[in-house]
């Protein structure tokens, strides 16, 4: 704003005005100003250009406003043997014409360089050399160079004429909404600089481009048709004849003759053996439908990418870099073949001091970051290809800056938005490929164009690609981490920044309507907090997913002993715990807010639940329980007071289930079960219309899953065998390591011999059950033996023998599982695209195992294979979700376990020999450990799998068994050192050391065996020290001593052997 202050220098006032007009987009003329203010003219002419420079450094309001290549007004008609027919396009370096080579009678493309271009002999030499190099390239997708020449000062290059258009023209077409064509034509070889580039007026040309675009979108290119030379003769150049025909032809109002050729493999008169394409093409041109980019389009783009990559691979193998790959240099012909043009010419054509910014920006945009430092190699070309593909996918350039300096800065330091963020329909794999190609560091890209081509091929064939993607949650986390470093703020604000970032990245401008400001603002506020919660939830799930502990908790330490049960609680890494604590803060504050608004109250209840979740993950069970109870209370009150009763039942049940989990973790199994039953009751009490919803059904299935899981005794105490029920072991229950610390009470498995109190609780739950069962006979029968038996059994008068309880509980559990499976199968059938349903279903199938390994019934193997199938397809569709792979590896491991010990045992139908399955499991597991070294469950799982693998390796391949054990030890000791508070991890380490010792002993490597056994003993002792109740383990330690004694004796150290034996005795 110019203030008419007489104090100001009048020149400055003018300058201010000049610059403001520029910024508004006008083009004020310096000469004009000079004329209007003659007294200041000299200074105006001196200084205003400098102003212009300064402004130009910032932003270019007009694209491509720099110098346009021109021949200086000369109209070419002939260049030696070549009769110029018409201009096709112009680019940064030269103008491309269509010409007729009279000596050979063929049509060619001729690129003419302006006279002043090659001034110095060295430049000319370079130019020639490059052209020769390019001419040596023979590839389907590289435009052949036929020759070069000079005529009256004009240098030119002769190339094959390609009937099609540059991808920049196609892109420009696709960017127009409604498929209208921009004012650009591009019929053949083009060096188009974009939509502003002038071109020969040719409606035929326009139609060609739009037809190409249409073909790209539909994935259908037509049969080739020989280009009819007659129509293009004449000194007027292209376009005359087609327009005349267009006017005359009524059946395709906007089509020209050229269009006809493109549109059909035969004439337009031919009938239906052509697809509907021709008619719809013409028709659709008439009324501009918007471009629908669907699967066909993605495939088209990928195909182009593949062709270009192959061509590059070939060229690179012939030691030729392109250096200037961009959509304008990629041609697409009417058959869908992609061509690269202008090979190597970038280097030859470079000019000193190109200050014509507009043109340079066009080239700059696709340059690889390292090119700015002068380091070009094959990967720079790969980068440029990737960037071109990016633009084809998203219909906008990756780096959109008009400001040259910003552009360079963004390219060298910044990152373009992810394609799927701009358009979620873009296939994930394709995005991954493109992102890898355009990685900022060359070493992060594909090393060769061949690899790029192969990965694209994989995509096209629906095979998994090599490049790896990061999950959305990982990205969110990285964003959050970046911002934390940014400000060193309290993590509460960090979380808010995350939320705000989510908001800020939405393009609200598009959504803006004529709402009243107030309402819109309030709505936006609610959306913001909803978004904030969602964002936080995403982070939460990343840190503390509901990941089951590795399934195999039991290990046979030697064939004679009963298996030792050591279930491992999920352990949080330090970072995860810290993050969760921070988030807790935020949720707590939210949780404490009141409010009358129903939505708000709902959010508060949700926050309470989240607090409970976090507390649960952190192991603060009492607080967790309190939060859950509060959440339930809030939800219940809300449900009563508002009309939205139905929605909340799902939430309430969800919380009740979580509460159940907490109770189990606190060793209050009865309360836990009751809670799950409460959840069931909640769900069942919902009215019919809401009970049909998938969310509700899912929660129902989840509840049954929990109930089914918990009804079975965990593997450990031996089930009743065919020889009748056995007494439960009189000793202490199977020892459970609680990684939270030695002061916790070991958890008893549920329920071996329920005491009176627990029976009472059980009775209460059963009564509830009874009522529900009467309503629906598909529900599992209540209690041991069902309703009828309940009447005959006297309640709590005698101690019930455990085995019938076990088996009927298992039946009940089985019923629940069946119900869960039934529900989930229906859900999956109705909603096949929701991965969560399938995932839970797979888990349910897996839970059907109750018999110990080696006695798998055929049906249970069936279930396992079903689980495997589901997981395999989940892994294929969502390669980025590590937990699916985790579950799959666990399932393979189970299959490996459950397979027959002896292949010839009757009735066994294992699909594969166990070790092979275990190998598969191991491969997956290793991958996971490599990708996610911070997640302890993966590491634990890999160790377990290795240990089981070892059981068979011991006999077949002893040296591999040893390597296997060593690797397992390595992983396990990493775990033990990362989580020093976990006695369980130390225990496992000890076990592995002992195993290794035994193995080495067998192989006769005695001194190594000794040290391994000694390590094992030391570790066991550490474990015993940290938890006095681990008396159960003394036996194992004693055995270890005995093995050590053995080894020592064999080594001739009898004295030491004696000592060891005595130690063993003292332990027994």
């Amino acid at each position, binding site marked *: 704003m110019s203030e008419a*202050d007489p104090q100001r220098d009048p020149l400055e006032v003018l300058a201010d005005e000049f610059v403001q007009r*520029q910024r508004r987009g006008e083009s004020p003329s310096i000469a004009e100003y000079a004329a209007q203010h003659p007294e200041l003219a000299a200074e105006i002419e001196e200084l205003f250009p400098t102003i212009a*420079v300064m402004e130009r*450094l910032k932003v270019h309001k007009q694209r491509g406003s720099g110098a346009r290549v021109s021949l200086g007004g000369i109209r070419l008609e002939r260049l030696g043997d070549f009769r110029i027919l018409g201009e096709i396009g112009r680019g940064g370096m030269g103008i491309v014409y269509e010409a007729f080579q009279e000596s050979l009678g063929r049509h060619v493309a001729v690129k003419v360089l302006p006279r002043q271009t090659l001034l110095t002999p060295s430049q000319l030499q370079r130019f020639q050399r490059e052209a020769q190099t390019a001419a040596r390239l023979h590839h389907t997708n590289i435009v052949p160079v036929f020759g070069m020449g000079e005529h009256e000062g004009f240098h030119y290059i002769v190339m094959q004429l390609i009937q099609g258009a540059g991808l920049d023209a196609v892109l420009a077409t696709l960017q127009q909404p409604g498929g209208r064509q921009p004012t650009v034509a591009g019929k053949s070889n083009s060096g188009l600089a974009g939509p502003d580039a002038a071109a020969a007026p040719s409606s035929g040309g326009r139609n060609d481009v739009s037809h190409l675009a249409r073909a790209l979108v539909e994935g259908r290119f037509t049969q080739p048709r020989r280009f009819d030379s007659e129509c293009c003769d004449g000194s007027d150049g292209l376009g005359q004849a087609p327009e005349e025909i267009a006017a005359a032809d009524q059946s395709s109002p906007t089509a020209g003759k050229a269009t006809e050729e493109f549109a059909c493999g035969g004439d337009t008169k031919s009938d239906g053996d052509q697809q509907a394409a021709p008619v719809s093409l013409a028709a659709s041109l008439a009324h501009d439908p918007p471009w629908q980019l669907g699967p066909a389009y993605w495939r088209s783009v990928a195909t182009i990418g593949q062709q270009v990559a192959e061509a590059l691979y070939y060229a690179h193998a012939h030691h030729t870099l392109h250096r200037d790959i961009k959509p304008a240099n990629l041609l697409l012909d009417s058959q869908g073949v992609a061509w690269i043009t202008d090979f190597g010419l970038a280097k030859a054509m470079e000019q*000193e001091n190109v200050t014509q910014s507009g043109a340079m920006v066009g080239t700059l945009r696709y340059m690889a970051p390292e090119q700015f430092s002068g380091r070009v190699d094959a990967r720079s070309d790969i980068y440029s290809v990737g960037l071109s593909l990016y633009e084809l996918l998203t219909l906008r350039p990756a780096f959109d800056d008009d400001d040259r300096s910003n552009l360079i*800065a963004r390219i060298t330091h910044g*990152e373009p938005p992810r394609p799927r963020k701009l358009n979620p329909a873009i296939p994930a794999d394709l995005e991954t490929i493109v992102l890898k190609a355009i990685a900022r560091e060359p070493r992060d890209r594909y090393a060769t164009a061949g690899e790029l081509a192969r990965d694209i091929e994989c995509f096209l064939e629906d095979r998994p690609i090599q490049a790896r993607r990061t999950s959305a949650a990982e990205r969110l986390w990285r964003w959050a981490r970046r911002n934390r470093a940014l*400000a060193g703020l309290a993590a509460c604000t960090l979380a808010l920044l995350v939320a705000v970032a989510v908001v800020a990245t939405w393009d609200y401008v598009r959504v803006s309507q004529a709402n009243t400001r107030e309402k819109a603002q309030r709505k936006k506020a609610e959306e913001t907090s909803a978004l904030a919660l969602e964002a936080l939830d995403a982070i939460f799930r990343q840190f503390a997913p509901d990941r089951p502990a590795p399934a195999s908790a039991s290990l046979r330490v030697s064939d004679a002993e009963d298996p030792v049960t050591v279930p491992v609680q999920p352990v949080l890494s330090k970072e995860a715990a810290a993050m969760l604590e921070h988030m807790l803060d935020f949720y707590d504050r939210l949780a404490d807010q009141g409010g009358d608004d129903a939505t708000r109250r709902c959010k508060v209840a949700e926050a309470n639940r989240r607090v409970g979740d976090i507390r649960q993950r952190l192991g603060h069970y009492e607080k967790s329980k309190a939060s859950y109870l509060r959440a339930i209370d809030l939800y219940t009150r809300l449900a009563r007071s508002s009309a939205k009763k139905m929605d909340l039942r799902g939430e309430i049940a969800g919380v009740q289930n979580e509460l159940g989990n907490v109770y189990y973790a606190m060793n209050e199994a009865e309360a836990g079960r009751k809670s799950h039953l409460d959840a069931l009751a909640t769900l069942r009490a919902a009215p019919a219309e809401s009970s049909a919803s998938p969310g509700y059904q899912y929660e129902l299935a989840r509840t049954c899953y929990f109930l089914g899981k918990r009804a079975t005794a965990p593997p450990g105490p031996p089930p009743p065998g065919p020889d009748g029920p056995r007494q439960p072991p009189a000793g202490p229950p199977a020892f459970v390591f609680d990684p939270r610390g030695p002061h916790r009470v070991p958890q008893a498995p549920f329920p071996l011999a329920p005491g009176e109190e627990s029976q009472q609780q059980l009775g209460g739950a059963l009564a509830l059950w009874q009522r529900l069962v009467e309503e629906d006979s598909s529900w599992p029968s209540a209690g041991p033996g069902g309703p009828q038996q309940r009447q005959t059994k006297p309640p709590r008068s005698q101690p019930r023998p455990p085995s019938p309880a076990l088996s009927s509980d298992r039946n009940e559990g089985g019923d629940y599982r069946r119900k869960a499976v039934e529900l989930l199968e229906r859900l999956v059938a109705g909603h096949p695209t929701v991965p969560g349903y399938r995932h839970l279903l797979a888990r349910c199938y897996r839970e059907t195992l109750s018999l110990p390994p080696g006695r798998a019934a055929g049906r249970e193997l069936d279930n396992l294979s079903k689980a495997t199938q589901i997981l395999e397809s989940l892994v294929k569709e969502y390669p980025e979700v590590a937990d699916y792979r985790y579950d799959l590896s666990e399932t393979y491991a189970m299959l490996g376990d459950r397979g027959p010990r002896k292949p010839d045992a009757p009735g066994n139908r294992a699909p594969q020999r166990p070790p092979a399955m275990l190998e598969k499991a191991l491969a997956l597991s290793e991958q996971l450990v490599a990708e996610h070294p911070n997640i302890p469950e993966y590491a634990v799982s890999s160790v377990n799998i290795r240990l089981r693998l070892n059981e068979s390796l011991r006999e077949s391949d002893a040296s591999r068994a040893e390597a296997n054990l060593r690797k397992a030890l390595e992983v396990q000791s990493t775990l033990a050192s990362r989580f020093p508070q976990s006695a369980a991890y130390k225990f496992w380490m000890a076990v592995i050391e002992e195993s290794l010792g035994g193995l080495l002993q067998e192989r006769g490597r005695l001194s190594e065996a000794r040290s391994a056994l000694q390590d094992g003993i030391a570790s066991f002792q550490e474990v015993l020290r940290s938890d006095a109740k681990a008396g159960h383990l003394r036996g194992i330690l004693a055995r270890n001593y005995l093995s050590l004694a053995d080894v020592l004796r064999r080594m001739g150290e009898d004295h030491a052997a004696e000592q060891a034996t005595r130690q063993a005795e003292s332990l027994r």
Partner: protein
Amino acid sequence: MASDVEKAVDFSYTWLREPHVDDKVDQPDGLANRLKDGDREALATLFSLHRERLWRMVNFRMDRRLLGRVDADDVLQEAYLAAADRLQHYRDESSSSPFVWLRMIVLQTLTNVHRHHLGAQMRDADREVDLRGCRYPTSTTASLAALLADSLTSPSQAVAREEMLEQLEQVIAAMDLLDREVLALRHFEELGNSEVAEVLGIQQKAASIRYIRALKRLRAILSQSPGLLEGNGHV
């Protein structure tokens, strides 16, 4: 005192609004008065009015080494929160016009960001002398020279760019401090003459004269390096 959530919500609105004409109808004093009253809406309005220019400033004055890690938008977000916090003190600091006040906060935020990321790597020698309490995290010289150097290089001459950059930096550094600053403020931050005067703490007349002088100096510099100055008069 607004909760953090509310502040974050406010900030996100500044993205949602385009600077509307009716916002400008608000008298400048009106805005200042509302700010003195601690009106958060007024802060949001102020922010959205000047967001573009502040964004330019951040971009211009950010060290290149931060470009991959920090977005100008990030800095603005944080500055907004800081401004919201400082709103209660606006009364005391209201000797500045609202925009200059806000600009100062953004600058301080930017400086903190630099300090956090670059720490010891911040080159003290390059930082500008205090100008009315604002320290710039990067030197205007460096930023300006970089922009100029970028503007002239053809792709394969990037190696020469480094040398050119050094030369340019030297020459621009030899300019008078205030002259240089005026150029940056007027062109890269798009400040008007009165705003420049306020920021630099000089009279409007002096600011005006300085600008012209600076242009002359710059022109002399540019004309010595081939290719920097365009011959034609059209833009």
